């Protein structure tokens, strides 16, 4: 057993921890919280509400694995949703073009941020900080009033529900209700799979890990470090554009406050999922579970009827703290074992 742990890569080790803790938490929620958590729809609602965040977390994990950070994803969510909302409602736009807008915003962001980080060697924190400022400010400039989109095509898409076969529950009236997910969830899961495959089975994916592990070495190993960094930011921003759209699809409104704090949630999810800010270590499945963990905590706190709003923040922080300390202690122990 100890040998197995010793040979485990850091990424896999942290992923296992995450999965175990998440399962324990969910089972705990079922046991102690009862009712709600046994319903499949509760779980799918978590997915529905966090599909956008899942994509953002994937994006964040990618840059974090490559050794960077991007704190502009939340701002981009606001910008994307506001631009799309304004286009759809004020300019009578259609949905495909609005999707294109989201992608273009992502692309533009990715090109600029990627270039600044990779080719001009500016610290990613500062670049994406400016990116966040820019997105938030730009959102207000585009439109400062929050509003719900009424574009029929869009609303139809927003309300589209995909039933999950074989799952459902019986509600208060005694009617069987099939569990469903929104379109965003399908997109999010596709992206998780895509990113997982990309990071695991493509050369590009592995070079992200290599660059994150040791930039200098990666260069010596014949990897184009600048290009890799550039691509990581490019993909991240495009994903953030998609994530922003999925989020928009879920909330259906354009508002300056959209995606507020999403960057921190995405980072927190990635960390809970076992991605390390130092780079080179991380896993997309972990980030996915990380989002679910975070959302589950929120759900547990919200439904526990604690009465006061501040508990949410404190509990999430406590869980985050717990995760981090567990990770830190386990990694330290592993290192010790390795020495012997």
């Amino acid at each position, binding site marked *: 057993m100890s040998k197995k742990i010793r040979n485990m890569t850091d990424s896999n080790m942290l992923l296992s921890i995450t999965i175990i803790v998440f399962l324990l938490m969910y089972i705990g929620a079922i046991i102690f919280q009862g009712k709600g958590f046994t319903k499949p729809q509760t779980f799918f*609602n978590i997915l529905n509400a966090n599909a956008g965040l899942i994509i953002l977390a994937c994006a964040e994990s990618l840059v974090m694995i490559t050794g960077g950070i991007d704190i502009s994803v939340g701002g981009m969510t606001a910008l994307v949703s506001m631009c799309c909302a304004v286009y759809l409602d004020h300019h009578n736009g259609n949905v495909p073009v609005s999707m294109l807008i989201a992608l273009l915003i992502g692309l533009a962001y990715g090109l600029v941020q990627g270039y600044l980080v990779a080719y001009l060697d500016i610290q990613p924190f500062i670049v994406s900080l400016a990116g966040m400022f820019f997105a938030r400010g730009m959102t207000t400039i585009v439109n400062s009033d929050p509003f*719900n989109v009424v574009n029929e095509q869009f609303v139809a898409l927003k309300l589209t529900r995909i039933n999950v076969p074989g799952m459902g*529950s019986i509600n*208060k009236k005694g009617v069987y209700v099939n569990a469903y997910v929104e379109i965003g969830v399908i997109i999010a899961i596709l992206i998780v799979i895509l990113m997982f495959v990309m990071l695991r089975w493509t050369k590009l994916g592995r070079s992200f890990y290599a660059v994150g592990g040791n930039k200098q070495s990666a260069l010596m190993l014949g990897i184009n470090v600048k290009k890799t960094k550039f691509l990581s930011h490019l993909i991240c921003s495009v994903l953030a554009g998609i994530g922003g759209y999925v989020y928009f699809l879920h909330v259906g409104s354009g508002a300056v406050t959209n995606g507020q704090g999403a960057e921190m949630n995405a980072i927190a999810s990635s960390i809970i999922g076992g991605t390390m800010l130092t780079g080179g270590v991380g896993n997309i499945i972990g980030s996915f579970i990380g989002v679910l963990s975070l959302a589950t905590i929120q759900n547990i706190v*919200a439904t526990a009827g604690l009465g006061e709003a501040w508990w949410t923040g404190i509990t999430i922080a406590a869980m985050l703290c717990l995760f981090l300390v567990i990770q830190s202690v386990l990694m330290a122990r592993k290192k010790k074992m390795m020495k012997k």
Partner: protein
Amino acid sequence: MIFDKKISFSVVLVMTLLLLAGCSGFLLGQDQGGSSDKGQQDEKSNRSVTIGLSQIGSESDWRMASTRSVQEAFSPGRGYYLIFDDAQQKQENQIKAIREFIDQGVDYIILDPMVETGWDSVLSEAKEAGIPVIVYDRRVDVKDESLYTCWIGSDFLLEGRRACGWLSDYLKDRGINQDINIVNIQGTLGASAQIGRSEALDEAVLAHSKWKLLAKESGDYTSAKGKEVMNDMLRRYGGIINVVYAENDNMAYGVIDAIEAAGYTIGADITKGEILVLSFDASKAGMELALDGMIAVDTECNPLYGPKLVEIIEKLEAGEKVEKETFIEEDQFSAVGYINSVKVEDTSYPVTYLTPEIMKEREY
């Protein structure tokens, strides 16, 4: 150790577990459905009613007083179990909370909506699940009115009209006949209170040829933002501002701060260049300012919904019908004097002359 075997194993493991959780959830859910019905009956004898309360946030005194009022009204001692959710100023969170309430199978949902639109889908989910939704304070704008059981709240337009009516009467009474330059520090844009109060002002400006609306900008109902916006206005217009129409007390507080910091005087005497501040809510802090004359008139926006809501739910529990729309009674306070009542559309509303005694009697 095999690298990809390990990982694929863990992926499969997770997927299976999730699937298992889902399936068992399905089975359990069914099970639970049955037993919870039974449980419900058991509880019925204890008369424990579970209520989900989705509150906008805790951004102002008013909101917090409102929350507290509801929480106190639905205390466990009276046979209620209240699940409170603070949405932190996001409709998204409210929708999430309502979904959670539905999943938890609460008996009633009480909602103070952040904005008016965007509720159709989640409220129809609640309706499908057979959970009555009671909307209070702000309104919802849904295509199908049957999606919510009833609404109870303030008549914001009336509040605005009463405030404007007071100003108009006051100016008439004092014989002030100069141009009146007004700035409007609006609430969070899109909120019912903002819409109603702003509309009343717009109406009044149209009705009075001497009144000029210099600018309107949102202060998001917070004092910090209100102060910032006011600073901005003072920088732009300086001393020509006569009246500030602040759409809640918190912003009025910031406004007063900004005006004093900029070296202008606050008061009702417009002819002497004093700036007159109108405000809404009549929270404790606002009333104190009104008592000092810093706020010329504070139009109440009653936050104490608790008792009213209990009344409604008791009616519903007893199987009685409730009115679709109810307004909550409200007052208007001023320490400036001169005006005892304001007439809006042929109805006369009293203005309470504010004294320290009145302050003491108030609950918040």
